[in-house]
């Protein structure tokens, strides 16, 4: 890589008393990419994130930001939206955005300009002099988001960003994030709801029980875990012999999943269907969802683990 990874985590370890929250985790994130940090609740994602945002420090290992060892100067280039988030209820919107922006290193003039610009984007200019508690919940969430990005960070870290958001705000945030990525901002999503970030992430890191169990480009991983499954959509009837030749899953009057055996090829199946005059409406490869990837990976690493999503042992 010509440019250093925006974040590089090397053998990082963090324990809280007896409990090891982050267990020798390493990964690297290319710049202006969208990375998903996925894993069940209690897996250690937030602990890891807090180390990247310099809120806490690792017991062992190192973290690099854009090639430099992580230091107290870097938070001004990082935007952080924590899972448990909120604002000062009794402060005015504009004043609060200014305060948070200035804490991130912006001077007064720039902070004010940025605040007004962002509020304008969300049609919230009129809320400048209102107290946060006077705003609707949706508006408060928007203000919260603005506070996270107002200082033009190089890296955005969003912990469970969609929790509590109504669909309108969720879509808005999605749009803004994609736009920021276009402008060169790196984004880390952390969530246990993998389906929420499926379409967004280019890279993923799977965390389970404090360990990095899988990382890489989403397309590569999906391909690696692909299961030779295909989805067929059709009209009319299927040839009776089909079930004997191929493994059919979830048949409905208009669609069916077909699982190819190792020796079977997709093109042969298509030829078979065409030969038997099946009216094909659609035919596509079924790639595993990240959920399925996760479960597969966990069980692969630990066949005895019957409950992969139960990371938080009492």
């Amino acid at each position, binding site marked *: 890589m010509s440019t250093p990874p925006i974040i590089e985590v090397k053998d990082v370890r963090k324990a809280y008393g007896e409990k090891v929250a982050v267990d020798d985790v390493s990964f690297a994130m290319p710049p202006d990419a969208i990375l998903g940090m996925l894993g069940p609740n209690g897996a250690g994602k937030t602990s890891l994130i807090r180390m990247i945002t310099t*809120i*806490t420090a690792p017991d062992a290992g190192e973290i690099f930001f854009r090639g430099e060892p992580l230091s107290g100067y870097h938070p001004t280039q990082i935007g*952080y939206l924590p899972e448990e988030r909120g604002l000062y209820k*009794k*402060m005015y919107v504009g004043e609060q955005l200014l305060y948070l922006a200035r804490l991130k290193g912006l001077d007064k003039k720039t902070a004010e300009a940025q605040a007004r610009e962002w509020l304008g984007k969300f049609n919230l200019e009129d809320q400048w002099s209102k107290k946060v508690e006077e705003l609707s919940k949706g508006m408060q969430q928007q203000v919260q988001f603005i506070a996270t990005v107002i200082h033009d960070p190089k890296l955005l870290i969003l912990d469970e960003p969609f929790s509590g958001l109504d669909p309108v705000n969720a879509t808005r945030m999605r749009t803004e994030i994609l736009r920021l990525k276009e402008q060169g901002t790196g984004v880390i999503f952390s969530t246990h709801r993998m389906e929420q970030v499926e379409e967004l992430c280019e890279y993923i890191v799977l965390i389970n029980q404090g360990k990095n169990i899988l990382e890489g480009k989403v397309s590569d991983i999906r391909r690696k875990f692909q299961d030779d499954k295909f989805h067929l959509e059709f009209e009319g009837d299927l040839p009776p012999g089909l079930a004997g030749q191929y493994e059919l899953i979830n048949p409905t009057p208009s669609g069916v999943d077909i699982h190819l055996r190792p020796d079977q090829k997709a093109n042969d199946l298509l030829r078979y269907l065409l030969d038997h005059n099946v009216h094909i409406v659609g035919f596509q490869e079924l790639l595993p969802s990240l959920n399925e990837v996760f479960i597969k990976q966990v069980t692969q690493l630990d066949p005895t683990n019957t409950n992969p999503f139960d990371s938080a042992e009492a």
Partner: protein
Amino acid sequence: MNNLWLVIKREYITRVRRKSFILATLLTPLGMAVFFVAVQFIFSYENDEVNRIAVVDDGDVFAGPIPDEKGLFFKFVDKDVETLKAEVLGAEEGAYDAVLHIPVVKNPRARDFRIEYFSDEPMSLDMEIAIKRRVEKAMRNYKIGQLELDKTALKALDTDVEIRSKKITVAEGENEDTSMAGVVGAGLGTIMGFMMYLSIFIYGMMVMRSVMEEKMNRIVEVVISSVKPTTLLLGKIVGVGAVGLTQVLAWMILIPGVIFLVTIFFGFDADAAQQMPQNPDIDPEEMQTMVEQVMAGVMEMNWWVIIPCFIIYFLGGYFMYAALFAAVGSAMGDDLGEGQSLTIPITIPVILALYIMMAAIQAPNSSLAVWSSFIPLFAPIVMPARLPFEPPVWQIIGSLVVVITFSGAMVWLAGRIYRVGILNYGKKSSLRDMGRWLFSKY
């Protein structure tokens, strides 16, 4: 450093412009003024009443006229009691309000003497005191005459003992006259001790609430991604301290100011002295000297030492307790009621210190007072109270060192607890948890 200043500013401005702050700062002096006026009013109202008392002095106990006071007039009347009683009931224009019957003195050596007061209204306490005093004084003179005692010899019986207190110093020249120092010192010491006590409670708890508020509305994690937790903590303590200082300064200006305006406006200054029930025994000249001596005592106080030391104790005491309150605040969960018990270990030393302070005023150099001046949690309240009594210099210095060091240490320790506690959302943490956090590496 810049971030620290931003935090201090925010803590200060958001508090000072709150309605509750403005109201409290303005209403307290106003309230005191209203109270002041009301008291004056009550006194004067009572004395608007005019009571004219007809005195029937059968045995000529009174050698001369009875001294009147505002609202109370005595007149010797040469009628019999029954007629006068009827007049009182008749309530004609200019009639008397009461009849005082002083019978003949049967035995000048008797210790008891009963007189009668007739009226259609009950006798007020003030009147009872006024009448009693006059009659007792008259009786004294009467008995002196009847028993043919030497008046001048009797006068010599009562001796007014005055203690002249002088300080022994190494320096040449006359010893300082410290007569009034005791009284003034006690007053000053009490005031300073109480000020410390109240400040610690009011502003210490304000810090705690600030910590809890940030935790509860979940903004704290956003803030500490930009600011170190210890910086945030320090900014909070300083910011709230500035709010406290502002309020105290405002009161120091407003309270005397309002009282001054009120006395001018209502013209009570000169009359106030007359409103008080007259006590014929107190010599107005004596009062004057007493006031002068108090002023002298105030002047004598070692202000060059007292004021700077008080300021240092004020800051040190506030910082150490504010830090403790902050640490406790960070351990609170979302349920406000549960965490109240955590504040007890802090409030107990404060209250104890108050009691020790009151004892120290009586005995400024007792071992209790001396030892407590070196116990960090007690010193900021106890030592200022001792300052007017000129404790030994080494004690002052030692105590200051202890307070300054301890408050610095407390802020540091509180920081370690605070930075772990604020991210522990939901349930309240126990004292043991807090102890663990002290040692956790962050």
